[in-house]
């Protein structure tokens, strides 16, 4: 039996070189057959390091331009429509990931963020393609991806520096040393701006995790696909599962739940709708969350290194601990 199998394999192997060394040129041999069915991606949310569908089973549809004839995505794709329960599950996962993440050394967190930049660079064409699908011009898409990668490098570098910049030794009237040191807060909710879908998400999520927090982000509903492609970068970048969680769906439905959840200690919401901003603010008051609501900046604002990134972005979700220590003999 085994012998027979071996013979079969040998025969199969023997045929292969015969085919390529025949009359047909190599290029023709390797041309894809016309009848091939391309594999379209099932877009899923990113929770706890895994790609999941919504527990509700709901989807919403995203229209997009097809990049080319070879683009496997159809013009209309289904993306999971996250629910209140998805938010809750993600918060739980983020809470469980917190201990491990904040205990890592700042240097190690920086290494992981740099690794994220590396993976984003290698997936650059994919990120650009995704943005083009969402309606951006090729040039604009490329610029947005470049800025996003640079932002990851920026926060990777800042990871082991913000502490020394924000901590202080304070002069006090008495025989005490007095130190203020920044500490991570916990699980932070992020409502990413609709546009720019990639740079907005990267610019809001990365400073939060740089400071040792974990986060649950609600991706842009206008272009959730790019957020998912970016999540694939996160998934392959040594980032521990649960540190960055990306929920797709409607911000109007999800952000009040994120604001209400008592385990979420801070929320950074970039929302156009003034009523929704107010709702997030009032719902967040229940556990005295640190609520930051903003009217989203325009694309130039996000692209600009002076407004779209900085030490202040990290500082927004840090808690300051002040220690009094008696001066020795």
């Amino acid at each position, binding site marked *: 039996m085994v012998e027979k199998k071996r013979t079969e394999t040998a025969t199969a192997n023997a045929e292969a070189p015969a085919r390529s060394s025949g009359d047909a040129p190599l290029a023709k041999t390797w041309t894809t057959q016309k009848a091939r069915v391309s594999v379209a991606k099932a877009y899923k949310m990113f929770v706890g390091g895994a790609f999941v569908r919504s527990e509700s089973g709901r989807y919403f549809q995203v229209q997009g331009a097809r990049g080319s004839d070879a683009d496997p995505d159809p013009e209309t794709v289904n993306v999971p429509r996250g629910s209140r329960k998805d938010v*809750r599950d993600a918060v739980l996962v983020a*809470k469980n990931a917190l201990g491990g993440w904040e205990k890592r050394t700042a240097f190690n967190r920086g290494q992981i963020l740099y690794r994220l930049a590396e993976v984003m660079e290698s997936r650059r064409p994919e990120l650009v393609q995704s943005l083009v699908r969402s309606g951006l011009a090729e040039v604009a898409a490329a610029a947005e991806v470049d800025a996003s990668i640079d932002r990851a490098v920026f926060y990777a570098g800042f990871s082991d520096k913000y502490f020394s910049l924000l901590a202080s030794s304070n002069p006090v009237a008495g025989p005490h040393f007095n130190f203020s040191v920044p500490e991570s807060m916990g699980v932070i909710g992020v409502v990413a701006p609709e546009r720019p879908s990639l740079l907005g998400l990267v610019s809001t999520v990365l400073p939060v995790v740089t400071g040792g927090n974990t986060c649950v982000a609600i991706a842009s509903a206008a272009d959730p696909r790019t957020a998912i492609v970016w999540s694939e970068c996160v998934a392959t970048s040594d980032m521990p599962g649960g540190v960055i969680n990306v929920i797709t769906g409607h911000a109007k439905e999800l952000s009040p739940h994120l604001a*209400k*959840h*008592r*385990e979420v200690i801070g929320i950074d919401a970039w929302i156009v709708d003034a009523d929704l901003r107010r709702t997030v603010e009032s719902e967040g008051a229940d*556990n005295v969350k640190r609520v930051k609501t903003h009217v989203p900046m325009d694309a130039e604002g996000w692209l600009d290194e002076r407004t779209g990134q900085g030490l202040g972005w990290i500082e927004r979700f840090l808690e300051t601990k002040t220690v009094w220590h008696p001066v020795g003999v």
Partner: protein
Amino acid sequence: MTSHENGNGTGTTSLFRAGASAPRGGRFALFEPPPVDAVAVEERAAALAKRSIKKATKVAGLKLAISMMDLTTLEGKDTPGKVRQLCQKALRPLDSDGSIGPCAAICVYPNLVPVAKEVLRGSSVKVASVATAFPSGQSPLAVKLDDTRRAVDLGADEIDMVIDRGAMLVGDYGKVFDEIAATKEACGPAHLKVILETGELGSYDIVRKASEIAIAAGGDFIKTSTGKIQPAATPPVTLVMLEAIRDHYYATGRRIGMKPAGGVRTAKQALHYLVIVKETLGDAWLTPDLFRFGASALLNDVLMQLEKERTGNYQASEDFSKD
């Protein structure tokens, strides 16, 4: 010691024990429980866990679960302070709402029984003590019986004993039976829960056999696990044990209690266990006298869910007392 209403008082003689003149364990060489269909048991346990329980039903179920909880601390680092704190938690699980609780019992090591007894005096919360060389049970019988008697003398209302899994696995069922029966005698008025440590038994068939031996030897409760071994309580293993209890009830009319312990961490899991009990044994078993959860982390999750139902907001774990 209050009398339990399930007819398991010490005066009652089990049908299996009546008139046994030969060495009591001997008959189990011949005794063969029905085989367990592992696939069917797992499917059924999984199917019962799919039921969705919401709103008022959920609140009622969770409050029932709290009343069935044996709050447990079984660690080398247990101190009188920790046990007192746990007792307070059992008496009033949620400080902001006195209508929730109390729990069924506190489960501790024998040395800490007097501490718990003192705090719980005058309340309905019982004190359970592990005994018989917990958790391994690998000590001479005399030591195990002495352990049991001392725990009872110190004031334990309930004794959680472990069976000799080694004897069970080599097929020395007589030894297992005799040790349980002797421990039951040593318990005197205290209730006896028999821990099978299903995670070490290896198959559902052995779990079923161990359940029947424990029941026949006089156990008032059968309990899945010590909490020291993984896997601890699982829905399928609980179902197998509940079926043993059910068949014993059909044969004799005697009601045996069940206690899954270890591994029940979330409110949802607790509700699923209650569904399994109701579907297997009926409403009669949905009482702290016949069903208990052995848990420590479970209580806080249940409280968080109850607060979520009351306020509409998901809760933060920091807002609930640990231990």
